[in-house]
């Protein structure tokens, strides 16, 4: 019986640790992925995926990071940021502000703006 209890305790500790790591592991504030074809998507928590909007608002708590994963065959520029083919890169935004530039991975092929508040 005590063996079963100990196993249950160990399992609980392992699960608790896994959950704590999963929750506390630093994530980018914005996770942009560019699949082959070049139309970027934003990946959010709980596997939600949305199309790239024209403006992305980022909360400035801490030092927010924008991660861009480009699996397309060409380089892409998203506002001020860019990613070479096959590159995953993170940009750390140090201060509130508005960062605008041309966007090559957007359905409208126009501009993309990041607003850090």
């Amino acid at each position: 019986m005590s063996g079963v209890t100990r196993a249950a305790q160990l399992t609980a500790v392992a699960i608790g640790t896994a959950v704590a790591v999963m929750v506390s592991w630093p994530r980018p504030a914005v996770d942009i992925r560019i699949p082959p074809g070049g139309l970027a998507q934003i990946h959010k928590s709980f596997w939600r995926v949305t199309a790239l909007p024209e403006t992305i608002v980022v909360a400035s708590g801490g030092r927010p990071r924008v991660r861009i994963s480009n699996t397309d065959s060409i380089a892409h520029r998203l506002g001020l940021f860019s990613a070479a083919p096959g590159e995953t890169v993170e940009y750390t935004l140090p201060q509130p502000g508005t960062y605008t530039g041309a966007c090559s991975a957007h359905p409208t092929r126009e501009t993309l703006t990041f607003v850090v508040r």
Partner: protein
Amino acid sequence: MRHLSLVRANVAALLGLALVACGEPNWRGIGIEPARDIPAFRFVRSNGDTLSTAPQDGRPSLVFFGYTHCPDVCPVTLADWTRAKAALGDKANRVRWLFVSVDPARDTPMVAEAYAKQFDPAFLGLSGDSATTAGIQQAFTVASYETPGATAVDYLVTHASQSFLVDDTGQLRAMYSFNSGVDAMVSDLQRLLR
């Protein structure tokens, strides 16, 4: 008792993970992680000499892509660079200040050099052939394109507006958006110049 040890081990592991996660450098500019390897490019100067952008020990580089007919972003950025250079004092002599033309058709090496030197004699104006220009833009993943003007030679060039910080090993570390002041740039350069 063993249970308690296991919990302690888990807590230690979590603290270790947290330390690893917090270990990345905090640039005052926009940090780029992982740092991007920038290959060396060679530019022919107006006197016929060749200038290589290959890394030099103890000498970080600040790189900007622009053109001499630029009505707004380029002069403002190079004026910011003069302020940054003044703030760095003697240490500024170890920085390579590279203004790279994205308009080689109009900016000959002589024109690019003269333009950059208007702002400070230490600023290096570079203009390469079209292959070199395309190659260095690709390395920094920046683009430029012409916007037609009133005449064939009166066009504007849309180009990236940020300044890039490359360390003395040739790694692109950070960048600074247009008109964001010089404090972050100066702080990050001072860090690399220690």
